[in-house]
């Protein structure tokens, strides 16, 4: 498979994502929406972004109280307002939402 980013430095380019949290997750984290920049290599996925949110230290430590470790099974992911898998490949400008257990109706 061809390198999608020929000529870029090995670290990979950065992409900026809009990240949203809802309900109990939002309250655990202490924020509901923010812009997050991550390096696109290795692959930028919601799973990897989740880990970045836990360790981000940009002055306010935005995600220190999110559940530690891999994305919990009870948390679903939406990319650009459609359900997506945790290994979905993210691109610059995507809106990524982490959805705790749904309870509608």
């Amino acid at each position, binding site marked *: 498979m061809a390198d999608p980013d020929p000529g870029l430095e090995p670290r990979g380019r950065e992409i900026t994502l809009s990240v*949203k949290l*809802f*309900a*109990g997750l939002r309250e655990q984290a202490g924020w509901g929406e923010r812009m997050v920049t991550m390096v696109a290599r290795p692959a930028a996925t919601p799973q990897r972004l989740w880990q970045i949110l836990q360790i981000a230290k940009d002055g306010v430590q935005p995600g220190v109280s999110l559940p530690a470790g891999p994305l919990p099974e*009870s948390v679903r992911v*939406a990319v650009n*307002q*459609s*359900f997506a898998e945790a290994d979905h490949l993210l691109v610059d400008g995507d809106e990524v*939402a982490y*959805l*705790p*257990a*749904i*309870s*509608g*109706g």
Partner: protein
Amino acid sequence: MTFLQVRLHPARFDPLTSLAAWECQGPGSTSAAAHFIGRVRASSAGGQPLEALELEHYPGMTERQLERLAADCAERHGVAAVLVEHRIGLVLPGDAIVLVAVAADRRGPAQRCCQELLEALKHDAPFWKREWSGGKGTWITGNTPL
């Protein structure tokens, strides 16, 4: 072609008024209809008196997801019209949370589509419930049994 109507209500709504309007606009000359109205219980999951139920949603995705679920379900069952109305915000005990109505040529598709769509939106439409009881809010992490 199926007539689909999806609406979120930020304030109290009367499901019977909604149904009456829908009967005039949507189902056309169909001979069967199935309706479901869900209301807020008087007690919390823990058995305490419930003051209110708060419904959070994901603006944009919730509406789109309801439309997708309704369209998919309508196609699977070959029904003529589907109506989904859902509350958001603070809902008081006894007030309607959800209305699902389906019109079809026969009772089987109408009833099956109504039940399947209700279950789908409980699990696959981004809504979150928080029970308020004794001045304390508790997020609900699952659905009540069928």
